[in-house]
């Protein structure tokens, strides 16, 4: 076990870091750095919430629907709560949900993808069919159905969202495995009588692992939007946990009167999802060899 991990780390992380530093002046590299900076800022904001939020997010601290200004930088909402404080505390929810749901999706999608891609044959076709049917189903609808059955709470919502994105991890990993499987070194390892698990762990996994950061950053944005969608429809977290999506659902019917109470939470969702996409798109550009080919040619010419 330790063997493949150390091996994977030197090759994967080392390669990634090297590529980043080399690419940091290209559009893709800049996108990744901007995205990472924004995500880090929001993460720090969520962690430091108890120290930097000016008010308690769950108490009435002023008149209802006060416009931005004075002590309330972003105004107050329908319940007289400070919008800014709720936004600062609310940063925790999408980050927590992304972390938990991605872990679940990855924990199920990755082994299934490795197994399905490596085993091939009938097993592969059956798993593929199930995954494709989930994939073709509208994600929000699936999450609504699961959330309606299992109820509210961070873990429940994360699970509902995780199910939606299992097929994405599965697909990418599986497709990559089927191509890696054909490589001479994998065939050689099999021919030398190495066990399946060791071949997968030692040769297949380190190769397909480079997909994970890309799928993660693309999916994380989707997961946040799905969580917000659930919250808006009243299927999100229980009240009492400050959450950007919940704030929209609380205030949107008064949007024409107190726009700030809906506008700012939505704006922060957009900032976070866009930052995640920047990272994903940038990584994809850097790691996707098909697109990179031309760039290298251009560098060689120069």
């Amino acid at each position, binding site marked *: 076990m330790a063997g493949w991990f150390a091996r994977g780390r030197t090759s994967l992380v080392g390669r990634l870091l090297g590529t980043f530093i080399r690419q940091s002046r290209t559009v893709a590299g800049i996108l990744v750095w901007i995205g990472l900076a924004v995500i880090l800022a929001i993460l720090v904001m969520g962690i430091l919430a108890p120290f930097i939020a000016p008010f308690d997010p769950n108490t009435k601290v002023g008149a209802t629907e006060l416009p931005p200004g004075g002590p309330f930088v972003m105004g107050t909402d329908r319940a007289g709560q400070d919008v800014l404080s709720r936004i600062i505390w609310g940063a925790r929810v999408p980050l927590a949900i992304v972390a938990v749901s991605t872990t679940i999706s990855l924990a199920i999608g990755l082994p299934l993808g490795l197994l399905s891609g490596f085993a091939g044959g009938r097993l592969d076709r059956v798993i593929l069919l199930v995954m494709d049917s989930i994939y073709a189903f509208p994600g929000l609808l699936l999450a609504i159905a699961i959330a309606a059955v299992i109820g509210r709470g961070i873990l429940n919502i994360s699970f509902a969202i995780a199910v939606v994105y299992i097929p994405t991890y599965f697909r990418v990993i599986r497709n990559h495995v089927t191509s890696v499987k054909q490589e001479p070194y994998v065939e050689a390892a099999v021919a030398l009588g190495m066990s399946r698990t060791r071949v997968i762990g030692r040769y297949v996994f380190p190769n397909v692992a480079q997909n994970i950061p890309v799928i993660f950053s693309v999916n994380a944005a989707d997961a946040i939007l799905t969580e917000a969608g659930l919250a808006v429809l009243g299927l999100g977290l229980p009240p009492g946990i400050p959450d950007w999506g919940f704030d929209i659902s609380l205030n949107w019917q008064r949007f024409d009167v107190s726009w700030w109470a809906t506008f700012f939470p939505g704006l922060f969702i*957009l900032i976070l999802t866009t930052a995640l996409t920047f990272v994903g798109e940038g990584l994809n550009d850097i790691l996707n060899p098909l697109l990179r080919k*031309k760039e290298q040619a251009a560098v060689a010419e120069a």
Partner: protein
Amino acid sequence: MAGSTASLRAYVITRVILIFPMLLLLLTFTFLILRVIPGDPITTIVREGTPQAVIDRLRAELGLNDPLYIQYFTYLRDVFTGNMGTSIVTQGPVTQEIAYRMPATIELALSSMFVASVLGIGLGTFSGTRRDSLPDIGTRLYGALAYNIPIFWFGLIMKLIFAVWLGWLPVSGRFSPRLSPPPTVTGLYTIDSLLAGDLRAFVDAVAHLILPALTLGIVLSGFFVRITRVNVIQAMSSDYVEAARARGIEERNVFFRHALKNGLVPVITTMGLTFALLFSGAILTETVFSFEGMGRYVFYAITYRDYPAIQGAVVYYGILMVIISLGIDILNAFVDPRIRY
């Protein structure tokens, strides 16, 4: 040429025949899932404290005491005769309620798909041919923002600006209450009003459609911009484009005749997937604009555990998806000869 038309015809026929097993699989799946879901459907119908005798009678009426395979065949018969039972919440026939709401969603889906493809393919091509230039970066930024915007929030902003502040378009609904809707032919208000020759009704229906269609269409266009851009870049750097350039073909012709045609094939292929995305978005768009379509219907059905309504919605939605994917596959076969049998 004759051979290729024949193979295309064979493909279309096979694909149409394949619809039936697909539908049967879908129907069976729906049936099983709804029987497996925890909770007795009867408990959602009756109030607490209802006498056991009444519950038993209801159970018998709904056929819940029959063996599973009898329930299954009754269910299949009902689906094919268009009898999907009565909604537990509204007490109306499910088929009729869906017949009223489905056209709203189809109208929304078609118009937003139109907005998305015009914006997405246009901008994606524009940006893909100018890789890493300032317009390309701008377009990519647009694509990222459009794809990541919380659709609900975006719809609210559109509504506030164009309906509330500027007053150009109606705030919500599908049709003005002061006008009488056109006689139902297709259920799509825009088409029905044209068929009836009622221009005022047509203008009204279109005015109600613009904001929801723009909201959903712009969000979807983010996806199309990305896909189109990547594929155009790949096509532009391919060997056949190089070859065409080497033969001295004018750059404009290289682009339109060679690069664009090949670059758009994968875009059409992925269109099928966007329908799942579209429907997720439709649930939220319909909520913002009180546009009573299938998205809202399914949402209510699930939240109130209205089993007949869920079943009906899933079945009709599934049928719609199967037909759409058939259409897209046939379209694909037309543009890409490798797909045919």
